[in-house]
């Protein structure tokens, strides 16, 4: 497809389990972003990749959150030892540019994570 693809669309996990969320950006897009959207809130920035380099991870809430993009394309957001407050929609976005705000970010449909 032509858009940003995220999988799974829904994920239910028990507290304490590890989860992995996948993002396939638009082909050729250099920049990739992860956002966390709690219920009733706006998305909040988690981390940013330029190709395979993670240039900004200032939004990751704890060391249980880890993101990678080893080949500069697909990215995985991993959450270890999940807790109930991790329940949210996780949005991935990509854009073609390399660090200025001129090109808009294209978003995927998100993964809704529910921690029981």
């Amino acid at each position, binding site marked *: 497809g032509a858009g940003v693809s995220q999988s799974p669309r829904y994920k239910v996990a028990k507290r304490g389990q590890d989860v992995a969320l996948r993002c396939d950006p638009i082909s050729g897009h250099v*920049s990739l*972003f992860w*956002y966390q959207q709690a219920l*009733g*809130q*706006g*998305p*909040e*920035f988690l981390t*940013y990749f330029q190709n395979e380099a993670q*240039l*900004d991870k200032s*939004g990751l809430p704890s060391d249980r959150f880890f993101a990678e993009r080893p080949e500069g394309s697909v990215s995985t957001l991993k959450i270890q030892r999940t807790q109930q407050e991790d329940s949210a*929609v996780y*949005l991935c*976005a990509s*854009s073609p*540019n390399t*660090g*200025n*705000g*001129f090109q*808009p*970010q294209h*978003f*995927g*449909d*998100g993964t*809704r994570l529910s921690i029981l």
Partner: protein
Amino acid sequence: AQTVTQSQPEMSVQEAETVTLSCTYDTSESDYYLFWYKQPPSRQMILVIRQEAYKQQNATENRFSVNFQKAAKSFSLKISDSQLGDAAMYFCAYSIIFGNTDKLIFGTGTRLQVFP
């Protein structure tokens, strides 16, 4: 720190009428971008309109236009001739122009209902 505030949790409008959604922001930067995104129940964030802070002319995209008041740090969205398909969550967002990342900072959103 940059912040974005949307003071209207919910708005409603009758089909074919006009509605204005409010947004204020706080930043010490002089060059930045402002955006309005639409998020339908499918969860995908869709860019509605973009404004560059250095441009005095208000952006317009078909039925959507903005009122950008830089000195007041205000960025409202006007939807003319409202349609049923306009019903969604609307998020105001901010991004700096230059830097290592052009992450988006979102407001908390306004839910727009459109009545026939």
